[in-house]
């Protein structure tokens, strides 16, 4: 066997951490290679949206995983490094070449398997002018809102949080959009926005909150409770996402919605664009290095994961949103799957 060659995990976000944790618990050595200077991936700046109780966003799982991985002697972590090449000996993996993001220095890490867990890139709505992102005052993304809430810095967006405020969430920004090659649902944003809406309503009861959706995708064990809370808290759930945001003369944001064939104009102080998940930067080069194919959307999906061979290239496994967009729970299940398949294959690696 290959006791000393670790499983190299590309990406130190939810998926990479979860795979490392699962393998370490099972006695297998791993190395996490993360190109940023901290672990946690996208979730590290995501906010806890608890009201008087946990709403099940799963963000603190990342904190648990980081603690677990840091205290395990089976996991080593390389921060500020990315993958450069894959070296095989016949069909088996021998080592992974990694490169320092800052200095360009390269080194070789022995490996018996590689897990691609490189995550996603949040959609940048500047691409479409009608959202008014970076152009109109008061338009921000769900990512930015989470960063402000998490760092306690909401005042940089809302100057006086204690004043009444009309705020709206627009769903499906950058998702379900054929024109940008994103003809899929990002699966996390309806629930994430609804939880954030509940959290804001709880923190600032004088705010009036609306959520515009195309098809509301709230599923999971807490779905019933979240929707019930939304109704009892007076959060407006409105079918139909307005097509354009303009700045009215009084400085507020003005949108038109179509309902029952009629136009209705509404004004808001702030609009949050619920941005979808796009393929990670550098996916093409990662795919090429690992010998993986990308699907039509730029993710490493194997259509129904598992419908072909479970490892898309010998010794190479995939976990998390680099395979398919999804929420944290889906990512954790996908990481568990990758870890199990590695265990199943281990004697052949």
């Amino acid at each position, binding site marked *: 066997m290959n006791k000393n060659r670790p499983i190299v995990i590309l990406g130190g976000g939810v998926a990479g951490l979860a795979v490392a944790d699962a393998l370490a618990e099972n006695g297998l050595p791993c190395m996490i290679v993360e190109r940023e200077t901290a672990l946690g991936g996208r979730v590290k700046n995501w906010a*806890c949206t608890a009201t008087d109780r946990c709403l099940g966003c799963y963000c*603190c799982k990342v904190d*648990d995983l980081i603690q677990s991985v840091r205290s395990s002697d089976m996991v080593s972590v390389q921060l500020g490094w990315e993958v450069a090449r894959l070296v095989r000996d016949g069909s088996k993996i021998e080592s992974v070449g990694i490169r320092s993001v800052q200095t360009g220095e390269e080194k070789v890490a022995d490996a018996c398997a590689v897990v691609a867990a490189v995550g996603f890139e949040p959609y940048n709505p500047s691409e479409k002018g009608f959202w008014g992102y970076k152009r109109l005052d008061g338009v921000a993304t769900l990512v930015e809102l989470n960063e402000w809430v998490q760092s306690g810095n909401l005042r940089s967006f809302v100057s006086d949080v204690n004043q009444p405020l009309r705020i709206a969430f627009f769903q499906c920004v950058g998702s379900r959009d054929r024109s940008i090659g994103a003809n899929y649902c990002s699966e996390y944003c309806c629930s994430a926005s609804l939880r954030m809406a509940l959290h804001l309503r709880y923190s600032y009861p004088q705010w009036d909150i609306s959520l515009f959706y195309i098809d*509301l995708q709230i599923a999971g064990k807490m779905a019933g409770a979240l929707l019930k809370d939304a109704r009892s808290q007076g959060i407006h759930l409105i079918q139909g996402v307005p097509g354009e945001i303009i700045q009215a003369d009084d400085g507020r944001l003005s949108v038109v919605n179509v309902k029952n064939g009629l136009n209705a104009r509404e004004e808001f102080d702030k609009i949050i664009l619920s941005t979808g998940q796009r393929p990670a930067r550098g996916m093409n080069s990662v795919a090429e290095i690992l010998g993986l194919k990308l699907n039509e959307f730029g993710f490493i999906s194997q259509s129904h994961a598992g419908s072909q061979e479970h490892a898309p290239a010998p010794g190479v496994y995939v976990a998390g949103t680099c395979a398919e967009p999804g929420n944290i729970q889906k990512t954790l299940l996908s990481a568990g799957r990758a870890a199990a398949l590695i265990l*199943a294959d281990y004697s052949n690696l």
Partner: protein
Amino acid sequence: MRGVGSDCSNMESVNPFFRVLVLGNGLCGELAARALCAVGLSCTYAQVSELPTTIYSRLSHETFAEHIPVSCSDGTPWTTAAFDKMPSVKREGPFFKIDGGAEDLFGAVVFAFGASLGLHSDAIPMKVAAFQQTTPPAIPQRMGFVLDAGRDSDRYAAISAVEAALENQRKGGASYVFFRNAPVAVTGGELLYDQAKKAGVCFVRYEEGREPIIHQIAGQGNGLAFRIQAVDSVIGEPIDIQCDAIYGVGFAAPGAIQDAIYGIANYDVDQNGFLLSESIHCGLGQSFGRGVFAVGGCTGTLGLQQIASQALSVAVKARAWALRASSLASVDRISVNDECVRCLTCLRICPHSAISVNYAPARSKITSLTASCEQCGLCVSECPQEALDLIGFPQKGIESFLADIRQNAAEGSFVVYGCERSTSDLVAKIGAPPGALFLAVPCAGRVSESLLWATLNAGASGVLVIGCHPGNCASRYGTQWAGARVKEIWRKLQGMGIAAPVISYATTSARQPARFETLLHEFKRSLDKHAAATASRNENRQ
């Protein structure tokens, strides 16, 4: 120890910690058994025919074997047993065994069965057939599918219905799908929805509260037909069509989960009645009760692909559990002194089912199951005799913390008992108010009422207990117990005529440094305000 990925068919020689009992039915049971074998565990699959089997997969006939490869030398890699009814499963020390069954001991139990499908009968005025995975659109016809009536359909059931609608349409039939929320948050959902629209399937979005109205009418020949009336909420126009068949697409409902399952699953059930609570700590299929797992429709997950991932995740956790349980030396995790009167409070309160009783003629003994015990301390703080102590966080450590306060603490010092998980990383990240004395506790639930009194008696001007948010506690309800104790002390203080805000409880998470800092400063302010008010009252009296 069993090698990873090796032949799993010979059970006799296996260390019982590495044997897993699957109690299930249908594809969920098969997937669980496959996954456990794939990671090298020894599996007995007890197939219980009364358990429900409903789950959903895409009609494109993926086989579950493709999801979970198992390579074994010969025959079925797992042992099977058949039951009509759910057998009773008991714990025996760290193991599980089927009551009245063979003597086999198992290190873990996995519940793996499907759900039932519910239809909101008030919302659909007449009884329509429930859409099942097995409903084949054999002959092209006019078919109506009613989704989301009264309650959102299960996403996987809904996507299967869209697929059935598309297949019918492609064969020359006419399909109508009435919905409120299109099921796109599933793999390939949006693409399928697009394909169905392009193929001519008629999608009618209706508003909540305005469910389609269905009438039964006379059909061709002696057959029956249906008439559906609805209002398309996008264009605001009514639609009135006739169908040969109508299906209601329901939501997942837990099949009757018997007491037998509740007991061994530590009553770990969510608000809908599915196995495993809503807590994120159960999200991968692992119960709070250690050694117990659940996979499939019985947890509320109905999609085949998701169930396969869940089965594999559970298998990995179960293998790690087996390693931990078998390799931990039998070092006690809690100590029990002679004050124990075997009231079994600790056994009932333990969220991980880690306490057992070793019945013996002379004197029964409480013992903790080494691998299951997470040393949260709930048992220690609830024991009416104070007979228990945590080996990893002993009372004498707390006592020296209190002694230090008694001797050295400055005027106005206050104590913060912070749960390790949620606060230990935050302390270094914030600017704490002066006078704050921190002690990290394994769980807020370790802070007992007597500890709160002792802390005040040691001279602290106040005590703040901080735990994880309710529903987020890794000890299931430790944080709520802490809150309840603080409230109890408040009540007693008020009963004594003391209206002092000296004790408080609050919750946070490891990623809320701003909130944590605010909580500390707010508490300090309330103490200062109270001290100032007391001082001025005393002055006025003189």
